[in-house]
């Protein structure tokens, strides 16, 4: 069975390391915060100016002056801090944030990512994504393996305008976990019940497959 979005988030949560600062993008990445493993302390950074972001507020306790980068109402946890956008991106560019999890429209075997523009169709802007991907030490992409037309989002080369080059380290999709190596995508795990041949069929890029590919543990 292919994973749903929550299961993708749950798999990515296993990548979280103790005592790290993490920036989560909009969409599936936001869900990662729901699955922090026991004993792992994380502080979430949102690039509009908060570190130590907590869960959504209770009904009636929303504060218009407290939102995340997705413009959703949030809360803060003990130890949280607020700051301006220049300080926020100093944390990001200066590599003080250890992990970035973000969504993508395409990822290439070189670790290039495209997620901000579809020429002639959708132009919303890159927001903070270009700064994040240019500087993060570790970037994990969370996305569906194929787009709405059923086309592979895992490509030899991106076709859409690029957000950043040579930056993605790992991709977790509804079908597989892929690591980006010097030689391209390495298929390191498959979704429970999904066969290697099904993954190959859904993937445009070449996959490096060595030995038995284990099932993900969700």
């Amino acid at each position: 069975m292919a994973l749903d979005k929550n299961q993708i988030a749950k798999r990515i949560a296993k990548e979280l390391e103790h005592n790290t600062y993490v920036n989560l993008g909009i969409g599936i990445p936001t869900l990662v915060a729901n699955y922090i493993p026991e004993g792992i302390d994380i502080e979430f950074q949102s690039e509009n100016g908060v570190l130590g972001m907590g869960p959504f507020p209770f009904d009636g306790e929303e504060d218009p002056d407290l939102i995340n980068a997705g413009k959703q109402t949030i809360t803060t946890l003990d130890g949280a801090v607020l700051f301006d956008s220049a300080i926020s991106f100093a944390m990001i560019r200066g590599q003080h944030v250890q992990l970035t999890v973000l969504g993508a429209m395409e990822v290439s075997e070189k670790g290039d990512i495209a997620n901000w523009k579809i020429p002639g169709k959708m132009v919303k802007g890159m927001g903070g994504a270009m700064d994040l991907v240019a500087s993060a030490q570790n970037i994990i992409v969370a996305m569906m393996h194929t787009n709405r037309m059923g086309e592979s989002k895992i490509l030899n080369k991106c076709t859409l305008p690029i957000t950043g080059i040579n930056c993605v380290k790992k991709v977790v999709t509804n079908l597989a976990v892929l690591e980006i190596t010097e030689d391209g995508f390495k298929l390191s795990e498959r979704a429970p019940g999904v066969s290697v041949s099904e993954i190959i069929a859904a993937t445009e890029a070449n996959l490096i497959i060595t030995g038995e590919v284990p099932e993900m543990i969700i």
Partner: protein
Amino acid sequence: MINKFVENIELALDGVKSNMTCMFGGFGLSGIPENIIKELSNREVDGLTCISNNAGVDEFGLGLLLKRKQIKKMISSYVGENAEFERQMLSGELEVDLIPQGTLAERCRAGGAGIPAFYTPAGYGTEVAKDKEVRIFNGKPHILENSLVADFAFVKAWKGDTAGNLIYKGTARNFNPLMAMAGKITVAEVEELYPAGELDPNHIHTPGIFVQRIMQGENYEKRIEQRTTRKR
């Protein structure tokens, strides 16, 4: 004490003319100068170049100026959530310069800090880097970005005093302190205005030297774009 207090919004916006470049603080609809934007939307000024992280929504924030076609060019990082914006951009009525958010923040900060340009890794290898100087530092390519200044910078703060000192609340701070630095004339509207001496100097975020005019804002709507809650 140099008194920055202005009594009303007419005085606060004195000198704003068509074809000027204006900065607007805020992230989404959080921390935007609501009173000033509304007043501008009632004035006969157009051809504006607006520097703002976002472009408001259809009926609020900078969306009000877009609707009346007062904006010639937008310099932003993210402009989703606004149908009229998209229409004007795709039809070519509106010029749009999309730049990475951290670069936008730093360009404003640098403009206010007297730094004409800086190198950043953000955007290298993308269309953002087109026609920009590339230089390698520590083995990594960076692109040269120019700083930004504006004829007017419009910011919103939580508390302010008559000396122009500002304190922001929550994530409504965002671009406001940076743009406050980069305006030739910076106009601040505040929720709570105090006589100089009432605010603790230890707690000030934006020193009054960056603010030329400060006014009492009123009737803040503070719209929420994505109201997200959890069950008790």
